[in-house]
């Protein structure tokens, strides 16, 4: 936390209140404060820094040190709107300054041209609300480049023949290749595919105040203790604080946005750390609370004018949720890979980004990556070959042989938007503050399941070519746990079938903007964060332009 932060009073009408400090919120806070606006960022989680990030698996994974906690924030799940939801853990997200970007894998794929215009290209798909974006890849390209250069992304431009055009190379070379990456690259080439160095939001070269990756091996799900992971915490938030105009206010749980008599948002109502209700006044509100909490906040903010939820005249708030499809195939090799060293992924391929439905029998596409993202306890409890002994001498033998010799191939693919798939308010279960809990309703589109199975078959083909001594994959099943939270307040030109316009302004409330995974119209091929951040840079430009021409309330 820098000393440069202003301390605004809740009664000060600041220019913007930004709700959430993750991938999108951090960037909006940076851009808006750098443009001269006074900004308060309200973050429900704590303000942790590098010194707090440890390798203690129990603290981080079992006790949700960095993530939403099921005791404080219970969730429910059901497959369809006809079912009664059961209480179960239904999603995970980063609940701290920096949000999910603090603990993510840091895969940083751009979307391709097709992701923005798929509906026009393929026509309607039964059971899906597939739609084109109101913007194209070309509109977003400068912002992809901006993200890569400003936060620090490692990669090799031009290495994939399937890559969309780019205006600039990556600012730094790829991270070193891991043994899993070499195995993947050799086998993929044998099969005539086109592997390439994974673009990762992890530094391969140091930047001011941040180290290059030291390959500590506690990456996915952990905070980076040396600032090498290009999270909003390590990047955008620090820049925002430097302006002297941005206050990061942690432990501030926003639960309502109120409107004045003219239908303008007046700021945000939140619980502070002592659970007292506070009201931060602001000229405009930007919600970046993630694809689950953003729609929940709008639904919690229902009022006389919007009885079904704020800015929900379309009825689409919370709907069309996309989680991304995919599968995992695990394999064991003869010699040690020692893949526990380093970040998760070093090689990927995009040969299957755009599959031909006439050939494969379903709509969609995806990519593969080679990785090892397991930490010792998680590995021992969940990643030995099926049928392995669970304790005793035999267990110890398998464990000590396999830990260094295991890697995984992940398939990542499209999710088709389905209207019923949603986050909504549970009618019965309440969180620790007495507010309705998040309810996940989800049933994968049949094509998503077919794609997952198809990608698993490619992973098996690849591992076979690689000479794996053993491989296995859990059967593809309908999902009931959410990590990628996409599409729940989608962007569009038609106020009847979208929640925000291409400026991220809600169709219904002039000074209310939404930007995060909820803004996405399609799911991409499984790695949404770079697109969320590019949208945030673009949204900041659009909002600044609106403010400068007097199109925001003064």
């Amino acid at each position: 936390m820098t000393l440069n932060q202003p301390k605004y009073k809740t009664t000060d009408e600041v220019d913007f209140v930004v709700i959430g400090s993750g991938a999108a919120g951090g960037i909006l806070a940076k851009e808006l404060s750098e443009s001269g606006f006074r900004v308060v960022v309200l973050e429900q989680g704590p303000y942790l820094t590098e010194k707090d990030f440890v390798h203690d698996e129990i603290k981080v994974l079992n006790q949700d040190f960095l993530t939403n906690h099921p005791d404080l924030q219970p969730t429910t799940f059901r497959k369809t709107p006809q079912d009664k939801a059961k209480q179960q853990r239904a999603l995970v997200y980063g609940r701290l300054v920096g949000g999910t970007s603090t603990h993510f894998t840091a895969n940083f794929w751009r979307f391709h041209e097709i992701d923005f215009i798929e509906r026009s290209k393929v026509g309607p798909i039964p059971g899906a609300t597939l739609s084109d974006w109101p913007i194209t890849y070309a509109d977003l390209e400068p912002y992809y480049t901006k993200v890569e250069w400003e936060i620090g992304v490692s990669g090799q431009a031009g290495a994939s023949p399937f890559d969309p055009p780019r205006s600039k190379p990556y600012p730094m070379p790829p991270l070193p290749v891991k043994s899993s990456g070499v195995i993947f690259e050799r086998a993929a080439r044998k099969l005539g595919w086109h592997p390439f160095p994974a673009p990762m939001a992890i530094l391969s070269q140091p930047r001011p105040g941040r180290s290059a990756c030291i390959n500590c091996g506690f990456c996915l799900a952990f905070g980076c203790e040396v600032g090498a992971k290009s999270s909003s915490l390590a990047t955008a938030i620090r820049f925002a604080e430097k302006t002297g105009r941005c206050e990061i206010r942690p432990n501030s749980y926003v639960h309502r946005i109120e409107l004045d008599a003219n239908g303008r948002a007046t700021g945000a109502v939140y619980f502070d750390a002592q659970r007292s209700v506070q009201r931060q006044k602001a000229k405009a509100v930007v919600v970046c609370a993630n694809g689950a909490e953003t729609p929940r906040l709008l639904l919690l903010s229902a009022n006389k004018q919007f009885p079904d939820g704020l800015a929900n005249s379309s009825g689409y708030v919370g709907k069309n949720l996309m989680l991304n499809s995919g599968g995992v195939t695990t394999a064991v090799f003869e010699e040690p890979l020692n893949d526990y060293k380093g970040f998760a992924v070093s090689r990927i391929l995009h040969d299957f980004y755009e599959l031909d439905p006439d050939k494969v029998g379903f709509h969609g596409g995806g990519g593969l990556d080679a990785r090892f993202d397991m930490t010792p306890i998680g590995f021992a409890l969940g990643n030995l070959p099926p049928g392995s002994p669970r304790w005793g001498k035999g267990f110890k033998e398998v464990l000590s042989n396999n830990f260094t010799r295991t890697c995984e191939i992940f398939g990542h693919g499209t999710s088709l938007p389905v209207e019923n798939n949603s986050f909504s308010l549970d009618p019965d279960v309440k969180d620790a503050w007495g507010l309705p809990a998040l309810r996940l309703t989800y049933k994968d589109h049949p094509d998503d399941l077919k794609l997952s199975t198809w990608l698993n078959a490619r992973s098996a083909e690849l591992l076979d070519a690689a000479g794996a001594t053993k491989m296995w994959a859990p059967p593809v099943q309908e999902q009931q746990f959410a990590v990628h939270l996409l599409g729940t307040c989608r962007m569009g030109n038609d106020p009847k079938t979208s929640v925000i316009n291409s400026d991220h302004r809600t169709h219904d409330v002039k000074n209310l903007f939404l930007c995060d995974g909820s803004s996405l119209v399609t799911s991409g091929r499984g790695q949404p964060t770079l697109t969320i951040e590019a949208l945030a840079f673009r949204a900041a430009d659009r909002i600044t332009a609106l403010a400068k021409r007097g199109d925001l309330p003064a």
Partner: protein
Amino acid sequence: MDSHLSRRGFLSQSLTGISAVWISAHWPAMLSAATHARQSAKFSSPAKFEHFSPEQAAEVDAISARIIPTTDTPGAHEAGVVFFIDRALVTFAKDNQKTYAEGLPELQARVREMFPAAGKFSAATPEQQDKILESLDEQSRDAGRTPFRSSAGAQSFFETARVHTIMGFLIDPDSDKRGNRDGAGWKVIGRDNEHMFQPPFGYYDKDYPGWQPNPPDADKTKS
């Protein structure tokens, strides 16, 4: 060697074989890692139990030593897993106190029933101990008897002890959880107890010639 001494000394010890360029690029990170190591030094393990009686501790130690036995490499006993479980039951796993409170007498009852001459679990032979644990393992296919059903609020005793043993064997030895003493568990699974690594990492990347572009034959029409 005392693990904490070696952690403190790691800056000087782990530099052999690492290039000067790499060191200068990573220096801030190494200082940070050193700070982590120093912080961890205060969590030394006194040989004192916070939850178990010495008698209970001896039984739990014996159970853990069958779940991860000592072979030609250290097992749960050498890694001090019983100290981890003891602390777990007064910290993050308080809810499991009941599981052990009910499970340990049940274990004793099975010793009396199956191997009366042994007296207590920790005094039975390893083969007898395995048979007793198999009888408690609800997932063991050859249990041949009704598994012990814990009462409301308690978990399956064997499964809890199994998971706790694995956790205590493999937890970051620099954490405050008192497990994985001297990094014994990590040695067994082949994980070097270091805060940073540099390539090559493993067998398959050690002779990697560097990135070679894909041949320009990509069929950009659909697969």
